[in-house]
């Protein structure tokens, strides 16, 4: 299979599978097989794509054979392939978890979850692979609409209320996105990102920087960056576990991914101070929110925000080391965050609630669960030898290299506070004794599947930690490509001079 076909398949296969699962929605067995099969195939494809990209470099596809200034170009470089494989493999793990959770009150409706998860997968793949700003909008909408429905489909009051925040904020951002596209198209005559990389730097400084800022706001909203983060901690915790797990691992990361992609491609280094300030503030408000909460899922949701700050910090440094740090942070963070939410789901399955004050003593009753929580929690806090350490260390190292001491201090402080909030969960949920009152609701999840899926996820984070060496080399290569996008531009534009 040619790499071009591979890239196309990554986007279209999940859509076809989504159609199929939708048609099979009443046939549970076949539907699940198709969903799992499609996600498995997608993971395999992404794996092949990564190995091809490592060996052959960047590949662009002109859909329908149209030249890049007319049609849509999909392009896979190292950054895209690296983040994509992690993202899709994570979705696969969550789907396995979802299969185990079927009958419990916390599960998503399987008839909808399958197709929607596939649409989401396609949107994630498209947003990472597209080389076209407008197609990026479409990809965002694919992800968002799937997430809107996943979040609210059970129709419970809390979900509808918080779904409202989520939908409204993101729709607003989408409208601004379109206006931004209009501004870009008017001033440059193209929506192709490689052409933008050539033409945007030629614009007058204020217009160029203005466009950069505009998209910082748009993508920053999707990424839940300060001060546009508030919708996230309200909405994520109300969704069914598997849905939150996917959201946590992927959605905001797509926002940061695109921010990194767009702002490096169009050379927005002028925004460095803004991005660094946003990064620091995002870390701080995120961790403060996490410390203030009384619910595992809400604490974890606020940590999504604080961790976004780290990735922004990597971008804000605009150095190879910084962006490489951001890249490896993606690779580490997607599975770690997802797995943490899965353990949150396991806690909920055990005791009927994820509220701290209604939990206790699980370390004694469920030691395996305690271990499954502890490993990603320590990783999130950035303790060695877990994956989070490598990622945070890389960023701090880059910060010191760039002499950006304030952001380094904030990053270290937030690390300590992250640890404090993880300790808070640990002490309330795993230590102490279970609070009095009625016993936990009896649910009969397929526990092996649940624990197994979570275990695979935890194992994956350990594998990432042990492969940190080669992953770092790849991240550095990806960062170099991002900051010097000649290969990207040449691959898209080829010999055609528009």
């Amino acid at each position: 299979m040619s790499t071009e076909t591979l890239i196309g398949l990554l986007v279209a296969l999940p859509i076809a599978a989504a159609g199929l699962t939708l048609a099979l929605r009443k046939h549970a067995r076949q539907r699940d097989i198709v969903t799992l099969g499609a996600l498995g195939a997608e993971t395999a494809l992404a794996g092949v794509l990564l190995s091809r990209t490592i060996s052959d470099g960047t590949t662009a596809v002109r859909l329908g054979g149209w030249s890049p200034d007319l049609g849509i170009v999909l392009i896979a470089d190292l950054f895209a392939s690296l983040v994509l494989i992690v993202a899709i493999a994570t979705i696969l793990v969550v789907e396995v978890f979802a299969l185990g959770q079927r009958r419990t009150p916390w599960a998503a409706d399987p008839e909808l979850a399958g197709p929607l998860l596939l649409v989401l997968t396609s949107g994630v793949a498209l947003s990472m692979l597209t080389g076209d700003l407008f197609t990026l909008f479409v990809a965002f909408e694919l992800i968002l609409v799937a997430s809107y429905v996943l979040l609210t489909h059970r129709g419970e009051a809390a979900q509808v209320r918080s779904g409202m925040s989520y939908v409204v904020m993101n729709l607003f951002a989408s409208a601004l996105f379109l206006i931004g596209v209009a501004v870009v198209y008017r001033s440059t005559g193209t929506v192709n990102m490689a052409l933008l990389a050539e033409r945007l730097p030629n614009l007058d400084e204020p217009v160029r920087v203005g466009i950069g800022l505009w998209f910082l706001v748009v993508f920053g909203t999707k990424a839940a960056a300060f001060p546009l983060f508030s919708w996230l901690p309200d909405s994520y915790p109300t969704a069914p576990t598997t849905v939150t797990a996917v959201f946590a691992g992927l959605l905001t990361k797509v926002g940061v991914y695109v921010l990194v992609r767009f702002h490096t491609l169009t050379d927005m280094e002028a925004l460095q101070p803004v991005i660094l300030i946003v990064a620091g503030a995002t870390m701080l408000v995120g961790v403060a929110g996490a410390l203030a909460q009384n619910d595992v899922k809400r604490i974890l949701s606020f940590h999504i925000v604080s961790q976004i700050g780290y990735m922004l910090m990597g971008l804000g440094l605009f150095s190879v080391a910084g962006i490489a740090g951001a890249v490896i942070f993606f690779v580490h963070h997607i599975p770690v965050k997802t797995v943490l939410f899965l353990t949150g789901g396991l806690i909920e399955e055990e005791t009927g609630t994820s509220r701290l004050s209604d939990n206790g003593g699980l370390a004694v009753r469920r030691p395996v669960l305690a271990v499954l929580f502890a490993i990603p929690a320590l990783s999130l806090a950035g303790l060695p030898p877990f994956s989070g350490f490598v990622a945070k260390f890389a960023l701090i190292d880059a910060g010191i290299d760039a002499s950006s001491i304030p952001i380094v201090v904030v990053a270290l402080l937030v690390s300590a506070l992250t640890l404090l909030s993880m300790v808070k969960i640990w002490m309330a949920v795993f230590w102490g004794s279970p609070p009095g009152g009625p016993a936990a609701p009896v649910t009969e999840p397929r526990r092996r599947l649940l624990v197994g899926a979570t275990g695979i996820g935890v194992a994956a984070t350990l594998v990432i930690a042990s492969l940190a060496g080669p992953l770092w080399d790849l991240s550095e290569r990806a960062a170099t490509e991002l900051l010097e996008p000649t290969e990207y531009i040449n691959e898209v534009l080829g010999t055609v001079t528009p």
Partner: protein
Amino acid sequence: MISVHSPIVAVGVRAVTPLAVVVAAYLFFAGHNQPGGGFSAGLVLGAVLSLRTVAGLYHPVNGSKLMAAGIMVAAAVALVPAAIGGGMLDMVVWSGELPLLGKVKTGTAAIFDIGVVLIVVGLVDAVLDGLGTDDIAIETPASTRGAQ
């Protein structure tokens, strides 16, 4: 569902139906050369569905099957060229003489547009199903408030 069970309305709606189908077909086939296309055609067909629903001639049946079919058709158009060795979303154009219509140019893009029609019709059906199935409980706010 809001429905008007009146024989006159029913007759009128019955009469309009074939006309609307013709309009939809025109929009669909003209789309490649004139304003129109799959989306417009689908919405016109959808309008028929809603009229028939209002007239009590049709009961919305949850359009997910139609939408599933539409997605699969469109995805197939995207994927099949890749499967037979071309690139994804490569479109093929056929032209030929047909009786009555004369010289016709068509292609895989038209099949793609069929997917669009299916989805739009399915959408209208779904919306009729979702937005209108039960009576909104404005009369009994107390009972719904209790559920909160």
